[in-house]
């Protein structure tokens, strides 16, 4: 399990996170929070007129799983509409990370990024 969990892909994703940083002029911004460990993530989005994500940036500290998941999710949501993003779930995140499964204790870590994006969409919708 650990050997799979900390495979190259994951370490690479966490080491060189995609879309890490901030946007100068985001359409909306929100913070995600993992209450079990205190990990925090800030995500910013820019949308086009059809509510498709054109740009995304995020920042935060966290474990490798939450960082890598946020990295791959940030790539995956580009070009998607808000309602398409809301349909994504744990299975999609695991797929992006090339995981078959994850231990129950780490589900929160892997869902921190996507979960916060979805919550923020709910709030603005």
């Amino acid at each position: 399990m650990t050997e799979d969990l900390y495979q190259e892909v994951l370490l690479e994703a966490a080491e060189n996170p995609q879309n890490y940083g901030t946007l100068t002029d985001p359409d909306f911004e929100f913070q995600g929070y993992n209450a079990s460990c205190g990990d925090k993530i800030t995500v910013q989005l820019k949308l086009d007129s059809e509510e498709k994500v054109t740009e995304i940036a995020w920042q935060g500290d966290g474990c490798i799983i939450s960082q890598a998941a946020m990295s791959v999710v940030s790539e995956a949501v580009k070009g998607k509409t808000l309602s398409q993003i809301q349909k994504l779930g744990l299975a999609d995140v695991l797929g992006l990370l090339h995981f078959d499964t994850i231990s129950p204790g780490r589900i929160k870590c892997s869902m921190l990024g996507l979960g916060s994006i979805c919550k923020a969409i709910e709030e603005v919708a």
Partner: protein
Amino acid sequence: MSFQQNSRDDFPVLGTSVHGKPLVYLDNAATTQKPNVVIDAIANYYKQSNANVHRGVHSLSDKSTLALEEARNTITHFLGAKNQELILTRNTTEAINGVLYGWALHNLTKGDVVVTSQLEHHSNFVVWQQVCKMTGAELKVVPVNANGELDYEWLESHTQKVKLMAFTYVSNALGTVLDVQRVVSVARNVGARVLLDGAQAVAHMLVDFTKLGVDFFAFSGHKLYGPMGSGGLLVRQELLDKNEMHPWLFGGGMIAEVHADHTLFHDDPVERFTAGTPDVASAVGLAAACEYLTNIGMETVAQHEATLVAYALEKLAQIPSVEILGPLTNRVGSVSFLYAGVHAHDVAQVLDSQGIAVRSGHHCTMPLHLAHDWIATTRVSFAIYNTKADVDTLITGFEKVSQVFGK
């Protein structure tokens, strides 16, 4: 130490394996494992004595009532308290909430002050934030110095209008031990009540409630080798006698007379604070745990664990990536640390893959973590069945952490 090998064999779960490796259980501050005597006591209660208490004239009910009474005697004797001073609860959290509903709401008003500290578990923190919201009292938080110790001078200079001081006896994050005497003397000078959160103390040191001189003492049975769902609140006799402490759960069992328009509560505090059917089996299990520890001797337990903590501190200090948190002396039970460049969850996961169970996160002490800018920490915590070999396995376990993350 002679009790050691026996004590390992007493705990069936320690014979299991995790990911094909023998379990090395170092998350005892979260909950301890249960010895056979506890598991058997619970099973035997259900096999031989199960009936509701006080509710019947039949023999089985008497047997169950007696089992509860004996269990209460054993538990209170173990903690140096009187039988009637014990209110059984599900855990520490429920016990502390009992002080909120049974004492604070009746005794605090706007302008009063409750003092707690940065070191507290959320159970002994959020409750006081809430009570201040409810009553208009003010919450003051004693800062903790770089060593993880309370700033007692701060406490001594912030005593105005203080009605309650609520502190943890032993910190679950840093192992810091409270200077109870000093706190009690400050409190007595200003007429404040003292609550000790004893969750991390009871399994590691001899506790004598009467000698401590505090007003409330909360503890969890499940951290004391007893069953989940067991714990208690000790309330000093004087508060019960003066009716300063009120029942906060109402219903069957706790009453003397019920009329259509009013109810008289039971005179006997034990009855008055036992609303509804008590969890007799858990009480019996917890009593078995207390007996088990008494047989080993709490001094022996304390000595053994002090050796382990000192050994762990020594070995951890030799790993360059590890930064030990908290005091280096006068600490009990838990050792938390940061691993440079690797998040605590990732450290814990790699250790888990080797059968080593440790805790990662903020251990329900967010104010402490925020004050120090720690996102998450890793914690190892010890019990009677742990050995130096467990510490050695842990230390070797870090080699893989270093391999996987290159740090």
